[in-house]
C-alpha cells in the first residue's frame, strides 16, 4: 500500500492538483448493456490520494463508470466494456488478472449499508480471512481494531464486537462497511452514493471519514448531492448522457465551471 505521510499529502494538496500522479487511468472507456451503449469513450484519470467525485443526472453513466474500475460490471451478463483501464499501469481487464484480487485492491462501498448478518468482528475479518491476510487470532484482532479505528467506529463498538452488525444504526452500519472495505488494505475505495440513506449527522461522520481516509487511500465517490461533492472532493467529473462532460478541480467546478451543461446541472437550472 502506498502510505504517504500526512505532511506529504498536505503538501501535495497545496500544489496544483494536476501535479498529483494518476492512480487509475481510464482510456476510451465504453460500456454496453446488450445493445444499449451506456458510456461513450470516457477518458478519466483518478489521482492518487485524492477524492474524485462523479456527478451527473440519473442515468448519466457515473455509477457505470465507477463499476468499471473494479470490474463490478462483470457480474452483469449482458455488460461489455471496451477501452482500457489501468491500475498503477496494469491493465485491469487483462485476462491474467484475478478479479478477486483486483477487488481487494479496489474496494467498494455501496449506497445502502449492507453488513453481513454476522457479528461486527466477523464483518471486518471476512475479507482478510478469504484473502489470507492474517494467520493468527492476534493478527485478526489487530486488523479489526485498526480498520474500525480508520472507519471512526472503534469507540462506539469496541465493547460489543460480537454483537450483530445489522443491529447498528444506519450510519454505523455504513461505517462498518467502510471498515470492512478498509480491512483488506485496498489502494482505491469506490463509493456509490455512500450517504444517500443516511441522516445529516451520519453523513457528516462519513464525510469526515472520507477526508481522513484520503491520506492512505485513493477515493472515487458517486454522489447525487452537489454539496457533498463540493465538500469532500478535490476533483469533480461531470457525466451527462454517457459522456464525460467536464473534469476539473472541485473549487473551479463549483465557482466557475467550463461547460454550460455542468453549470446548468450544479445550479439546478433547466438545460
Amino acid at each position: 500500500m502506498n502510505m504517504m505521510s500526512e505532511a506529504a499529502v498536505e503538501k501535495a494538496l497545496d500544489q496544483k492538483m494536476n501535479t498529483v500522479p494518476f492512480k487509475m487511468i481510464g482510456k476510451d472507456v465504453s460500456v454496453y448493456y446488450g445493445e444499449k451503449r451506456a458510456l461513450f469513450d470516457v477518458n478519466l484519470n483518478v489521482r492518487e490520494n485524492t477524492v474524485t467525485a462523479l456527478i451527473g443526472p440519473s442515468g448519466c453513466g457515473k455509477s457505470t463508470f465507477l463499476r468499471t474500475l473494479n470490474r463490478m460490471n462483470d457480474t452483469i451478463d449482458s455488460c461489455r466494456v471496451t477501452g482500457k483501464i489501468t491500475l498503477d499501469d496494469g491493465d485491469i481487464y487483462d485476462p491474467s488478472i484475478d478479479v478477486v484480487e483486483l477487488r481487494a485492491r479496489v474496494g467498494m462501498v455501496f449506497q445502502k449499508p449492507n453488513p453481513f448478518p454476522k457479528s461486527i468482528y466477523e464483518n471486518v475479518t471476512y475479507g482478510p480471512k478469504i484473502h489470507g491476510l492474517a494467520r493468527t487470532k492476534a493478527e485478526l484482532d489487530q486488523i479489526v481494531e485498526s480498520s474500525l479505528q480508520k472507519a471512526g467506529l472503534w469507540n462506539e463498538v469496541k465493547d460489543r464486537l460480537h454483537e450483530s452488525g445489522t443491529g447498528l444504526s444506519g450510519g454505523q452500519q455504513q461505517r462498518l462497511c467502510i471498515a470492512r472495505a478498509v480491512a483488506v488494505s485496498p489502494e482505491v475505495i469506490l463509493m456509490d452514493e455512500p450517504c444517500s440513506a443516511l441522516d445529516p449527522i451520519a453523513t457528516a461522520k462519513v464525510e469526515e471519514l472520507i477526508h481522513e481516509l484520503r491520506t492512505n487511500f485513493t477515493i472515487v465517490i458517486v454522489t447525487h448531492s452537489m454539496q457533498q461533492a463540493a465538500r469532500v472532493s478535490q476533483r469533480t467529473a461531470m457525466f451527462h448522457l454517457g459522456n464525460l462532460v467536464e473534469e476539473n478541480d472541485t473549487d473551479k467546478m463549483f465557482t466557475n465551471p467550463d461547460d454550460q451543461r455542468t453549470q446548468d446541472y450544479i445550479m439546478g437550472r433547466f438545460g
Partner: protein
Amino acid sequence: MSTHIASVYDEDLKYLTRRISEMGGLAEQMVAESVRALVNSDLALAQKVISDDTILDEAERQIGEKAIVTIARRQPVASDLREIMGSIRIAADLERVGDLGKNNAKRVIAVATASLPRQLARGLEHLAELALVQLKEVLDVYASRSPEKANSIRERDNEIDAIYTSLFRELLTYMMEDPRNITPCTHLLFCAKNIERIGDHATNIAETIYYMATGAQPVGERPKDDTANTVGAIGT
C-alpha cells in the same frame, strides 16, 4: 440564461438585482443633488440628501439579509454564487457612494457662507459630471452584465483622477492668494476627494460585474492618474 427548476430561487435573485438597481438610482441622485446644493448653496436640498442616506443604508442591510438567507437556503454555486456575492459587494459600494454624497451635502453649510468663485464651482461640477456618467454607465453594465463594457469603464477612471489633481492644484492657489479662502477651499477639497472616490467605487463595481460575468478577476492594475498625493513634493 435558463431558469432554475425552483422558481422561488429565481425570484430571490431577481429581488437582489432589482434592489441593487434601486440603490444605484438613489445613490446617483444623491450625488447629483449634493453637488447642485454645493454650487447653488441650497441648504434645503443638502438636507434632503442627508436624510435620503438612511434609505440607502436600509436598502444595503436588506440586500445583505436577503443574500445571507439565499445562501443558507439554496447553497448557490457557480454563477449564482458569484451573483449573490457580487450583490453584497455592489450594495456596499453603493452605500459608500451615498455616504460620500451625504458628506458633500454636510459641507454645503460651511461653504455657503463664503462666496465661491464661479470657476471653482465649474471645475467641481465637471468632476461630478464625469463621476456620475461613470456611475450611470456602470449601473447600465450591471443590467447587461457585459464583461467587455465593465472593463472599458475600469479603464476610464483615470480621467476623473486627472481632473481631481488639477482641482487640487487650483484650490491650493486660492488658499495661497487669500488665507480667508482656506476654510471653504479645504471643504471643497474634501468634496472633490469625495467625488473622486465615487469614481473609484464605480470602478470597484465594474470589477465586481466583470467577476460576476466571467468568474475571473480583471487582469492588470487599474489605471491611475491621481497624482494629487505628490503635489507640492519636491520636483513636481
